[in-house]
């Protein structure tokens, strides 16, 4: 069983502060981390490796510094890592990113499962999973909180559904986007951290390796302007004795509904 996990490297939110009045972002320490939700996808894959001996492949698109994210994935337990990098990829929006990742996944081939994080912490777009599934023509289950069964080429998963969950069954190969509450990702083992940089390789593919042309990579979305969202006004403050305040709050909530 081969599981491919596309991951995204993002700027560590602990390293910058947002100054709303000046409408500026101050970067105190430029550190990069794996998008936390993508680690949930990787952890799901690694548990399939622990339980079923799956081969786990991590894949990422970005600048050369993304190499660190992939080595961290190797340290956590991934068997192989692929970095898709090049100037032509720099302007990729979600549609183009899905195209590039999709090409790379086709090139790796012979896969059974693609696991993505449900949402990236920086853009919050939640597009890569669905777009990738469409590109590859795979069935998809989004917002999966647990893989609950795997047999005879079929996988059962619990996906978030309203207040609870829905249990779905998909034939493999398939794509799942993994919800943030699915698991607590493991720490990488100390020896694997050393090996990830000293012993193991990250394979790098560029435009030509993926058989793509620059024309195919024109983004659908163009960035016109960046702006801070309008400041939200404070809500209504309910005061008074607890039972009265609770009654008033309940009344307000009913009206909203």
């Amino acid at each position, binding site marked *: 069983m081969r599981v491919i996990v596309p991951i995204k490297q993002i700027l560590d939110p602990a390293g910058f502060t947002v100054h709303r009045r000046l409408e500026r972002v101050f970067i105190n320490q430029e550190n990069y981390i794996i998008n936390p939700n993508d680690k949930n996808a990787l952890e799901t894959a690694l548990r399939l490796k622990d339980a079923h001996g799956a081969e786990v492949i991590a894949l990422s698109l970005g600048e050369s510094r993304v190499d*660190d994210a992939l*080595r*961290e994935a190797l*340290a956590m337990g991934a068997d192989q890592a692929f970095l898709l990098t090049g100037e032509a990829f720099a302007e990729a929006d979600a549609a183009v990113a899905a195209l590039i990742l999709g090409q790379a996944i086709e090139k790796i081939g012979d896969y059974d499962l693609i696991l993505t994080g449900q949402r990236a912490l920086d853009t919050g777009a939640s597009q890569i999973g669905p777009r990738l599934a469409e590109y590859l023509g795979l069935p998809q289950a989004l917002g999966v909180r647990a893989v609950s069964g795997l047999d005879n080429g079929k996988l059962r998963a619990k996906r978030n559904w309203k207040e609870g969950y829905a249990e779905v069954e998909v034939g493999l190969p398939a794509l799942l986007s993994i919800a943030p509450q699915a698991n607590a990702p493991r*720490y*990488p*083992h*100390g*020896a694997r*951290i*050393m*090996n*990830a*940089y*000293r012993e193991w390789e990250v394979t790098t593919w560029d435009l030509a390796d993926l058989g793509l042309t620059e024309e195919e990579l024109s983004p659908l979305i163009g960035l016109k302007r960046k702006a801070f969202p309008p400041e939200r006004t404070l809500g209504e403050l309910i005061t008074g004795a607890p039972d009265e305040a609770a009654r008033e709050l309940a009344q307000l909530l009913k009206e909203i509904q």
Partner: protein
Amino acid sequence: MDFSFPKEYQLFRRMVHEFAESEARPLTKEIDEQDRVPFETLEKAAKLGLMGVPFPQKYGGCGAGEMGYCILMEELNKVCPSTAVVVGAHTGIGAMAIYMDGTEEQKEKYLKPLAKGEKIGAYVLTEADAGSDAAAIKTRAVRDGNYYILNGTKTFNTNGGHADILSVMAVTDPSLGARGGITAFIVEKEFPGFRIGREENKMGIRGSQTAEVILEDCRVPKENVLGQFGAGFITFMKTLDIGRLSLGAGCLGGADACLEASIQWAKTRQQFGVPIAHKQSIQWMIADMATEIEALRSLVYRTAWLVDTGQPFTKEAAMCKVYGSEVLHRCIDKALQIHGGTGYSRDFWIERGFRDQRITEIFEGTSEIQRIVIASNLFRPEGVRISA
């Protein structure tokens, strides 16, 4: 000269930092109050290779050398000096003695399970009348066929009450003393005649256990002689040499925690209508802490580089220990002063940090012994031999 950490060490530091914050932090108060060794943290640490960081991977370690081990000690001490001292006594001296002078068979049998954290190690030297004067030990080892029979009482043994494998120093020829008369042994707690004595009621690092080890006709197989017969004093001193570096790294972590807490407190604590960070008296204390910490950091990691590149490091490692413990002394004192009454309260960690700090100037060679080591290394090339 490149002063940046290689990438593998940056990721390793991040892992250890997250581990310490998530796994060790929640237990720090409890283990101090209950005098309890955090075995659950040790089990989790073992799964990540953190009980054998400096040793090669072929012996079950991480292969991260002293650089990696110093990072571990720094990050653990930032959060929990008790947890750090348990890991430190196990790795930095207990297992280290076997790594440095053990045979391949001994490394296979003892170092591997220690490095993997399946077994806990300890380093057993001190006696009632032999502390700084380590060569004055009285514990005797006498040959009996294929065994040595050990008799004596060892005091102040970190992990002594729960270690599985102990590196022990004993006298094999009283007429020769430190020069040929002392031999190191690997002792298992299951060996007949091995017993745990009184447990110390300590001022600090109360989440670690310090116990007496009593050897009463303890039968140790002759293949458990560690290093050369009669050269045990050298094995033990070599081990302490390297151990001093990581103790300096631990002090670096503790001092950094003092600085961080002091900055945060000075930003938020208001007196006379302004945060106390605006007061020059506070600024100077914080500036002095930061300066000493930076100097210590350079000393520690340069010394780690000396060790990992196979260069002499004895003098520098002693400097790490004495300077580190005294920087930590000054930093925790200043941090307590900056925090005022809050720092003195048991509700906040500074009070515990103050108690935990004091031992760093005593254990594994007092500050006075470190200065002797430094001075003797400075005078030896001048033809002057210094003895204690």
